[in-house]
């Protein structure tokens, strides 16, 4: 069953520096099934973040349409959870209150939203940090909070915008493994934006390669789960898929 549907999506904006209209996204059509994990990979400037921002409702689109469960997307909304590269946590709220923010906005009473938040913090191994403030946590821990904050709101689709790009390489691998584990447990529908080919393949059921605002190709990833880097670095299928996607991205 498809959840998210992009149809002939386009984005054109006026660039005051170039003094002209620039097309960032041309005619992108993509269906995402419920419970699917789709990575969108492409070089800088390929339009991947623009697409995510349009799905999130942060910027308007100039052509085509975005449907979520058949309904057109207008503006930001809680059925589309977002995980940001910069984490975008609320510094003035404890970790527990950050994660409970979505339920709070839905009017869930305090005791119940604390219970929900604690459940999701446990999922990310963060129970001990519930009463801390974000600035007291490492980058990796902050982004774990960012992920479960979005998940705790039970969104129909989880949009992730290069979420692990600003943490160190070792932490990134741990976060990627944790994300695949959480995905297996909860089966959220995910659209994951990245420029890192190995990351895209490691996480996804399907990798969409984007170039110059168009979909270049799509690659299904049938690697078994749970996915762990120690296994996959030497896995022939993983290497073959990564090489193929990398070739497309570099040719793009």
């Amino acid at each position: 069953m498809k959840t998210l549907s992009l149809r002939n999506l386009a984005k054109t904006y006026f660039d005051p520096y170039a003094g002209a209209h620039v097309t960032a996204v041309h005619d992108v059509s993509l269906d995402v099934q419920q419970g699917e994990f789709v990575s969108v990979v492409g070089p800088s400037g390929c339009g991947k973040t623009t697409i995510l921002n349009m799905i999130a409702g942060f910027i308007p689109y100039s052509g085509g349409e975005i449907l979520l469960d058949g309904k057109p997307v207008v503006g930001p909304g809680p059925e589309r959870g977002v995980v940001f590269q910069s984490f975008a946590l609320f510094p003035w709220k404890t970790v527990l209150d950050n994660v409970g923010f979505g339920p709070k906005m839905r009017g869930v009473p305090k005791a119940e939203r604390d219970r929900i938040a604690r459940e999701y913090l446990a999922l990310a191994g963060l129970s001990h940090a519930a009463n801390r403030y974000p600035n007291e946590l490492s980058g990796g821990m902050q982004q774990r909070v960012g992920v479960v904050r979005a998940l705790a709101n039970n969104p129909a689709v989880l949009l992730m915008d290069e979420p692990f790009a600003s943490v160190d390489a070792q932490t990134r691998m741990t976060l990627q493994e944790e994300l695949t584990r959480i995905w297996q447990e909860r089966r959220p529908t995910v659209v994951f934006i990245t420029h890192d080919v190995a990351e895209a393949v490691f996480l996804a059921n399907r990798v969409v390669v984007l170039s110059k605002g168009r979909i270049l190709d799509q690659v299904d990833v049938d690697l078994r789960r749970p996915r762990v880097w120690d296994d996959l670095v030497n896995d022939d299928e993983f290497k073959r898929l990564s090489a193929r996607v990398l070739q497309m991205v570099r040719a793009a």
Partner: protein
Amino acid sequence: MFVAPLLALVAVWAVVVPLFQINPRVFPSVGAVGTAALESIRDGTLIAHVGASLLRVGLGTLIGIVTAVPLGIAMGVSAGVAAFLTPLFRFFSVLAGIAWIPIATLWFGYGFGAIVFVIFNAVFFVVAYNTLLGVKTIPHTVRNAAASLGAGRWALLTEVLLPGALPNIVTGIRTGLGFAWRGLIAAEMIATNVGLGYMLFVARDFYRTEVIVFGMIVIGVLWLLIDRLVLVPLERSTIERWGMVRRA
């Protein structure tokens, strides 16, 4: 050690005045100021002056904050309004306080109203301008995060804009209160018959330098107390805890 430098200053004073046999009409001895202090505490005049001054500052500041913060947030949310009002607020921030005393006395007469207005005025423009800056420093992604978690307009205001702007609001209150405190003393010299400023001004007529100096000490110490007991704890429990400012 916050008190040590102040005690050192008193020690220098205690040595210099007798050493150079300074005329008490020019500058009083430590002992004379101590006597004046005890006298004004005993006869209740000190508490009356301090009470009047604190009430005016408290009320003017409260009105200033309550009106300035919503306006500052409104300006921060609307780029057009902010662009239009920013030059005005910068202008009035510089002018805030003392310069308004003459016209305030014309509007409110000599007394409580004029002085509270001057305090309000000193706080209002600075706090409003800083609130505007505070709202503008909140990263767009944080506002987007709130919106994508289901925050409506009201929740965005109370959960994001207000706490996000708080570091700047506190800075504004600190600066504004500094202006207000100076404005208060000046206004009380002109426009009333009770208060610390009045206490200084009247003492001058009788060459009572010991009362003047004691009043100046009270003014300085009260400010330090307000800062240490109100503003610093407020910062510590909020914006420092959140990591939004670092203690210098």
